[in-house]
């Protein structure tokens, strides 16, 4: 090639990034990497190793230790040993370390960027310009949370030893997202990087140690899925944080069920990219490029479902194809490419198979002309049109550079199609009409919505999904809570077994006036309805008196109640002021009958009248508390480094199942139902199995309190069996269960169908009279989803 050649062709030529320093570092570990535990390298206990490859060239990069149960144990023990000193260091001490990590990342940013590009196959341009700045920013931001932890989170404590499992698509960035908040807030960490991409984590650990991070605070154990499983199963782990596939997320939920380990999951997605006819189409085209061809489409929040308003669809697709023709695919270290290599041949195969399937189902394939490098795992940018919601490629997460395109007619239809997915991670909305964009955003089931933008990330803005895209947030204050636990709950004791109730005393017959029979039905869709099975169960007082009968609810009653709740979803859209009014009205009507409720509590539970009155009084207060919170538990305006804002909106989760504890039959019920209802959720509640009459007596109160039909549904019966039906129901979005340890375990285990949010007490008894344990943000935070709506602006 000569100057003249380039002058005539005006082609770019290659511009390779130097990799000398990285090769030298790899050479210094040519014998193979160990695990990084307790501040030093440890050879794998088993002696087993595996290789990590350079996907861009299909060459071996390094020998990596395969973690065994012994290695995991060593790492967890080191983390546990370091925990006390790390917490004792205090917020400011940890802030200094986090700040040091941020500086360390910046100091070595090119080394990290080149190594990441080599190990993962992603373009150096992206590691250099996107990943590394975000990594440094994450440590800076969380140095700040450490600094102000004591004042900002006074009622919360660190969780303890955290096991973290991260994916291969953003190896170093995911490490930062995981360890920055964990370490900042006083936890210690054992992290397992992905099998395909362990190198930047190992480099990070080595450099962090050199930068003065105390030993044992951050431990890296490498290995495959079996190593991850050992980490998850380790008894001294207090929390698992996972980013990866929904399939593995389900396994982790199941494995940790009933263990008391906290769990956050950031899983897959099939995120919609919605373009309205009043969008800046060329801007949206670049958005698509950033959405699906960023990182070869191997992005959990990739905008992979293009939804186009019919009027502009043809023009948009023509523009998009033209734009695809200018994308450059090649050596990840070349600074003039847009797309590098797919992480591994197995992923490449998967992408190929799914695209073939799409084509065989009738999709039209478009890939730009041009050749791919001869060696390495490369796949061209791909567009599939003539795709419908029923096509496999419109449903399955492809995790590659493959976009599917569909059309819509109206904003409502756009929302409907966008939400027609099991996932709910992210969405992108393109319209120049502010009213339209801001109207659509809250209607989308997604944890992140970008208006006229896509794939924006920042340490100050929470990231995480709805539905089967997982739960928990990473980044921002909302993300900090994922590494904290309520201090008040730490004092909870195991619930004492209640004494068996006596046999019911048979009623005496005779010619006295009998008491009028009281058989409570179920409360479904605003109506008192007979239980499907038409059985009832007697409610016996501790003295053996039969106080009444309640319906014996079964699966079908739960099904009907969930359907009623779903059709009452409008509750989530009424104004917060309106919800507050209704809760006040509920309190007012309960107050009018407080003597009667106190009497029933006293009779049912055998408690003193004074205590029973206190329970009613506290219940009324609690309703007031949630009426107060209804319009005050507000969102936040985040200020990421851009011209624009991110609105952290608190939205209702949807349909919640609530299993109430046996103790405090009225207060327990109200403490759990009121926060859910205050936040706009619709509830199917299973009241205290032993003392349900306080709940069934509420039917009339609810009916007179203007609570819309279906917002609160009550099914009496066996807590465990009804709880299981709720946990398994795929149209229930959350379940709270307070009761036996067995109930907690079953709820968590069975929640995997749709990965519903769960809040369980693991059989530990809550003090319902203590406001710190029983009301406020501690519950409200579990009654909402936080959606971050990014709004860049400017004219």
């Amino acid at each position: 090639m000569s100057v003249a050649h380039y002058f005539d062709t005006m082609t770019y030529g290659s511009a390779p990034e130097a990799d000398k320093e990285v090769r030298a570092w790899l050479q210094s570990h040519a014998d193979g990497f160990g695990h990084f535990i307790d501040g030093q390298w440890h050879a794998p206990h088993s002696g087993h190793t595996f290789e990590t490859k350079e996907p861009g060239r299909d060459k071996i990069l390094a020998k990596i230790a395969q973690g065994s149960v012994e290695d995991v144990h060593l790492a967890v023990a080191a983390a546990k040993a370091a925990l006390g000193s790390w917490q004792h260091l205090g917020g400011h001490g940890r802030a200094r370390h986090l700040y040091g990590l941020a500086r360390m990342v910046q100091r070595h940013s090119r080394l990290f960027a080149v190594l990441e590009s080599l190990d993962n196959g992603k373009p150096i341009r992206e590691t250099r310009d996107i990943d590394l700045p975000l990594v440094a920013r994450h440590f800076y931001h969380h140095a700040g949370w450490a600094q102000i932890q004591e004042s900002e989170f006074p009622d919360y404590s660190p969780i303890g030893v955290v096991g973290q499992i991260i994916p291969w698509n953003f190896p170093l960035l995911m490490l930062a997202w995981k360890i920055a908040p964990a370490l900042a807030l006083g936890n210690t960490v054992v992290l397992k990087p992905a099998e395909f991409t362990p190198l930047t984590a190992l480099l990070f650990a080595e450099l962090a140690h050199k930068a003065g991070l105390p030993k044992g605070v951050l431990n890296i154990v490498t290995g495959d899925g079996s190593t991850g499983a050992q980490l998850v199963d380790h008894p001294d782990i207090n929390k698992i944080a996972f980013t990866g596939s929904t399939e593995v997320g389900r396994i982790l939920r199941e494995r940790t069920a009933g263990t008391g380990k906290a769990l956050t999951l950031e899983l897959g997605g099939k995120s919609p990219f919605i373009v309205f006819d009043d969008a800046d189409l060329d801007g949206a085209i670049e958005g698509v490029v950033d959405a699906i061809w960023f990182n070869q489409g191997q992005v959990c929040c990739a905008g992979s479902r293009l939804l186009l308003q019919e009027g502009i669809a043809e023009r948009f697709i023509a523009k998009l194809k033209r734009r695809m023709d200018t994308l450059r695919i090649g050596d990840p270290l070349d600074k003039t490419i847009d797309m590098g290599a797919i992480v591994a041949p197995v992923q490449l195969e998967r992408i190929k198979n799914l695209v073939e399937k799409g084509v065989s189902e009738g999709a039209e394939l478009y890939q730009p002309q041009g050749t791919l490098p001869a060696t390495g795992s490369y796949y061209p940018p791909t567009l599939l049109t003539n795709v419908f919601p029923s096509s496999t490629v419109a449903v399955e997460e492809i995790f590659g550079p493959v976009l599917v395109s569909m059309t819509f007619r109206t904003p409502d239809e756009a929302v409907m199609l966008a939400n027609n997915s099991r996932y709910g991670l992210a969405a992108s909305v393109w319209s120049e009409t502010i009213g339209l964009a801001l109207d659509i955003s809250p209607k989308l089931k997604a944890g992140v919505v970008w208006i006229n933008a896509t794939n924006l990330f920042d340490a100050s803005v929470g990231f995480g999904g709805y539905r089967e895209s997982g739960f928990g947030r990473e980044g921002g204050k909302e993300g900090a809570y994922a590494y904290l636990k309520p201090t008040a709950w730490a004092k909870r004791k195991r619930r004492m077994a209640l004494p068996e109730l006596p046999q019911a005393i048979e009623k005496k017959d005779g010619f006295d006036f009998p008491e009028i029979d009281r058989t409570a039905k179920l409360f479904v869709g605003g109506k008192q309805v007979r239980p499907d099975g038409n059985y009832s169960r007697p409610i016996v007082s501790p003295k053996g008196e039969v106080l009444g009968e309640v319906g014996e609810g079964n699966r079908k009653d739960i099904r009907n109640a969930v359907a009623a709740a779903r059709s009452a979803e409008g509750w989530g859209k009424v104004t917060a002021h309106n919800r507050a009014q209704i809760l006040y009205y509920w309190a007012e009507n309960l107050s009018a009958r407080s003597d009667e409720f106190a009497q029933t509590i006293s009779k049912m539970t055998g408690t003193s009248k004074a205590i029973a009155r206190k329970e009613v009084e506290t219940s009324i207060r609690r309703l007031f508390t949630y009426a107060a919170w209804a319009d005050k538990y507000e969102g936040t305006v985040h200020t990421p480094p851009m011209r624009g804002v991110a609105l952290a909106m608190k939205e209702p989760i949807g349909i919640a199942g609530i299993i109430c504890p046996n103790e405090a039959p009225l207060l327990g019920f109200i403490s759990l139902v009121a926060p859910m209802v205050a936040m706009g959720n619709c509830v199917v509640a299973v009241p205290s199995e032993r003392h349900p009459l306080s709940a069934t007596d509420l039917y009339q109160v609810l009916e007179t309190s203007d609570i819309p039909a279906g917002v609160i549904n009550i099914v009496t019966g066996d807590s465990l069996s009804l709880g299981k039906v709720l946990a398994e129901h795929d149209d229930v979005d959350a379940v709270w269960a307070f009761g036996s340890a067995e109930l907690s375990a079953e709820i968590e285990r069975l929640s995997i169908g749709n990965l519903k949010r769960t809040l369980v007490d693991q059989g530990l008894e809550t003090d319902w009279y203590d406001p710190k344990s029983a009301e406020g943000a501690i519950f409200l935070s579990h009654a909402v989803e936080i959606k971050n709506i990014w709004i860049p602006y400017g004219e």
Partner: protein
Amino acid sequence: MTQVRTHNFRDYLTEIADNLTNLRMTTLVSLKSDYQEGKGGQARNAPMPFDIGWIDDIRVNLSAVERRTGSLPGRRTVKKDAQAAWLLKAITCIDLTTLAGDDTEARVRRLCAKALRPVREDILVSLGMGDRTIQTGAICVYHRYVAAAVDALSGSGIPVAAVSTGFPAGLVPHDVKLREIEASVNDGAQEIDIVITREHVLTGNWKALYDEMRDFRQACGKAHVKAILATGDIKTLRNVAKASMVCMMAGADFIKTSTGKETANATLPVSLTMLRMIRDYQDRTGIKVGFKPAGGISAAKDVLNYQFLMKEELGRDWLEPDLFRVGASSLLADIERQLEHHVTGRYSAYNRHSVG
């Protein structure tokens, strides 16, 4: 081709040399005129009927534009020989400009001399480009110096561009503007850089803008017309986009960002917005309109970013002087230094390159 008449060997050689020069010149001129007529027999832009529908649905999102222009310089780069070649190409696209109140005929002639030989010959030879003609795309002056520039550049094929229509504010009477255009064309200007009446844009009077532009186009006759939008005055990208479309609809051969006299000069976001309109116009009409960023482009690195934008958004054709010009005065000196650095491996200094 001229016949060689031999008298003696020395004359013979001289004549061959002359003829070769002529030949090269003719080729160059014919190439230039090819460009002016549009390559491959493509039609020059001509006024289309006014259609408000072409403007109504134009939307531009500033943040999205900035994201593209912010990331592109990191996505594309040229190194070594490729970089030298791209910079040489950039020189051929420069409208070497002097638009100062203290301009004189001698100053303009000095600039013309530089336009003819913008790069030191030894550098061109070292780059393996000694056999190519590297000249700037045009000379750009006020009407008063058109005749002198035409004379100084005569036979070179380098067109003279005149700024016109009451440049830079454009607030003289309409008929005076038309007269000014005609005068410059009469003096031999092959290109006229007109300024639009910003008021028409700021008040949304698109029909008035169209009428004005169409009249300018007509007054230019065979000369090509570049419409200066003064983007620093019309501010918003939506205004920029709509004004671009209206000017093309009214027959502009080029759309140009700035006079160089506004407070804000050419920027990548403004340029991207204009390029997208050029592309949409081509989609509607099949006609390729040229683009000229002007003002503030003074570093080699800057012009490369504009070239990347041209290539990525519009394609290879828009890297040649028939569709791409850069209005600049000090850019050339920086490019010369970069080229010398490429050749010698040492950083260069301004005094090693002749001034224009």
